[in-house]
């Protein structure tokens, strides 16, 4: 409530431009799937997927910080919202994806067959 009541329209349209460009880039790569990105892996995931995930996080940053006006909030509120989310999501993904990969290997390497 204590924000200065100046119009932010210019910033809003800039962010809209950034989000649109990122989406167009994502769709472009999603359709063309360039070989050198799609077939080369970094840390167990191909470069194309890394690109998509990084672009998505950039989009998420702009939505939260500009549209939800997180940049105008006090830092205590910013960190109370953002840090638990980042920590818990990384934790959850690490556990579940590792476990999923483990089960895949059990099916593949052991004598248990699910696909016949």
């Amino acid at each position, binding site marked *: *409530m*204590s*924000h200065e*009541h100046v*119009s*932010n*329209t210019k910033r*809003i*349209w800039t962010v*809209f431009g950034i*989000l*649109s460009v990122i*989406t*167009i880039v*994502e*769709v472009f790569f*999603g*359709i063309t799937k360039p070989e050198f990105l*799609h*077939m080369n892996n970094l840390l167990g995931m191909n470069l194309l*997927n890394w690109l*998509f*995930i990084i672009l*998505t996080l950039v*989009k*998420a940053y702009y*939505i*939260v910080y*500009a*549209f*939800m*006006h997180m940049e105008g*909030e*006090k830092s*205590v*509120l910013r960190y*109370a*919202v953002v840090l*638990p*989310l980042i920590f*818990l*999501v990384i934790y*959850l*993904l690490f556990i*579940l*994806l590792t*476990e*999923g*990969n483990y*089960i*895949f290997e059990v*099916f*593949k390497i052991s004598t248990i067959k*699910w*696909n*016949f």
Partner: protein
Amino acid sequence: METVTTENSVGKTWGGGNEPMGASYGKLMMWFFIVSDALTFSGFLAAYGFSRFKFIETWPLADEVFTHVPFMHGNPQPMLYVAFMTFILIFSSVTMVLAVDAGHQLKKDKVAVYLFLTIIGGLIFVGSQAWEWKNFIKGEYGAVETKGGSLLQFVDKNGKRVAIESFAATMPEEREQLTRNKGRWFMDEPSIPEYSVAEVQAGFKSHPDLLIRTETVNAEKHKTILTRSESELRLTQATLVVEGANLTRNEYGSKLFADFFFFITGFHGFHVFSGVVINCIIFFNVILGTYEKRKSYEMVEKVGLYWHFVDLVWVFVFTVFYLV
């Protein structure tokens, strides 16, 4: 609300009127609701990732599943339609933040116009989602399921998908659908596919240029296509014809794929729908001048937070389901 501000209550921590994080009660609670809802969606998406990693070699390829664009029937276009949906949602986010901005300047008419545009955007998105679901449920090519539960799809010698109805033989066999009024007790069955396994097998035999495509993703990141003799052998194990998708099985591949698709996009679509309803309520309040009397459009801001959150979730759903 106007009588207490954070500035002149400094030092009176227990005296009331203190806003601990510099945000009003309502806004703070909206933020914490968003944190918990974000964790819910993260749980769903992480579960999707778990199942996908578990069946990483056989998971369906998204750009072969979501290829429908209105007025372009029979011309598969991956990504285009869902990109359109993404734009609609981002744009409705923009109009929402413009409404909040106009609210700060107490411009009632501008707030109303922007909120109205936001509602329209939300409705277009929900409608597009429904159309996407319709295509997903109806399916396009059909497939057969083997005794072991894996899925076989049909392609011609160029690797192009072939629909079952275009080659299946018609046999004189008739199989009546069991419905409630014909059963002895509360008996019925899911709708019977248009063609039986025997008809598909006979049709396959009489079209020597057809091949079978399995679920397995090969080194070139395409689905593996069997040779003709392997295909014939594999087809003898078929037990079911699968058309479209439901919660039990689907013609795209892994059974879990359709379950996660329905559950996650459905849950998100429900959020969009409730966002539209809440936006409508706020829209009428703006028209009636409720916030004009209050001299504060903070309610638009709080609802705006929710609406942006819905957009935020879609950004991740878009990536997880359609891109990676």
